[in-house]
């Protein structure tokens, strides 16, 4: 028996600079076991070369292909078609929320990346700097580049920010991924971190909705990390009460 092919309709969000947003519909044939990103790529390749979207690794490592599929934040490279529609069904594809739309499905993540840097989040490091091998050995990959080691599970896809209702109404809120990055780094690593997260737009702005954890494709559990960070903040502030001034 051959692989079943489904006929589906893709409604894709379109918005170029200065244009009013609208949806374009594409009638597509898809293997139910292929991924949403594969279909988006075929739309671009065979139907509309002006469609813009981000993608890179195709295996949930780079975090580039985050979008909303039928209203829910998904990493489209690991979201099978059969998970989001049925034969004859429709898939609605939108850009992530709570980021400025650059073009179609591409959003501006500059501020988000800057905030991740601010809290010292280091998703990857050269293996020699990560302290897992001797510095005398400098392993290189096939292209001669120094090998990198992934240190944290967060792939900086931004899906948690998109799903957060607080980030929706408060653009100054640091957001789940940034606070999770600070928690992973630990408040004892940098005094500046405490001032960044113990702030009205920081760890106390979270309203316990847990959508960040629900949509995270890397099981980072940002909500748990935010709650843990609160404990770290209280503990650090309490300790400082008993520290001599100037220390």
């Amino acid at each position, binding site marked *: 028996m051959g692989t079943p092919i489904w006929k589906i309709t893709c409604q894709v969000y379109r918005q170029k600079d200065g244009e009013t947003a609208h949806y374009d519909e594409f009638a597509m044939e898809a293997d139910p076991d292929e991924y949403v990103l594969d279909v988006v790529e075929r739309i671009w390749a065979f139907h509309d070369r002006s469609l813009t979207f981000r993608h890179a690794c195709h295996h949930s490592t780079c975090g580039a292909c985050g979008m909303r599929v*039928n*209203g*829910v934040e998904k990493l489209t490279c690991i979201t099978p078609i059969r998970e989001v529609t049925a034969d004859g069904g429709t898939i609605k594809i939108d850009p992530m*929320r*709570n*980021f*400025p739309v650059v073009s179609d499905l591409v959003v*501006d993540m*500059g*501020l988000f990346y*800057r*905030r991740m840097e*601010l809290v010292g989040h280091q998703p990857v490091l050269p293996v020699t700097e990560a302290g897992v091998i001797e510095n005398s050995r400098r392993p290189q990959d096939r292209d001669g580049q120094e090998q990198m080691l992934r240190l944290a599970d967060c792939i900086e896809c931004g899906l948690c920010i998109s*799903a957060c*209702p607080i980030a*929706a*109404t*408060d*653009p*100054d809120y640091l957001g789940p991924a940034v606070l999770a990055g600070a928690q992973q780094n630990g408040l004892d690593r940098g005094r500046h971190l405490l001032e960044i997260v113990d702030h009205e737009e920081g760890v106390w702005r979270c*309203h*316990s*909705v*847990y*959508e960040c954890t*629900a949509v995270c494709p890397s099981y980072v559990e940002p*909500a*748990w990390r935010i*709650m*843990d960070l*609160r*404990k770290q903040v*209280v503990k650090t502030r309490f300790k400082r009460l008993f520290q001599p001034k100037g220390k």
Partner: protein
Amino acid sequence: MDESLRKPPPRSWVQAWFDPRRRDLGTFAFVLNRVTALGLTLYLFLHLIMLGNLARGPEAYGRFLETIEHPVFVFGEYLVVLAGLIHGFNGIRIALTSFGIGVPYQKRIFVALMVIAAVAGVIFGVRMFAV
């Protein structure tokens, strides 16, 4: 922070806070907490306005008490009780999880507390509407 970096335009809080479609249980809890909080705040204002009748003398207050015995007002009071139960019990979940207690079980805690709120709501309803 580089101010040239673009921030998203804030979305309408009505849409962002009160649309739980396709969202997880946490959003339903969040919406319930918002709706009940707004309801209780509105009731507080109405309550203070109503208490203002005391300043108009015992007869005015007596007439006011007769008015609020109407079933519509009794139902309104019942909604206040329900809002208090939902908001209060959901608040217990938020207070616990906000400091890391039971975070992995927050959905189960929410369901359990809402069951308790529902049972308490039925008991209150039976007592309030019993003829």
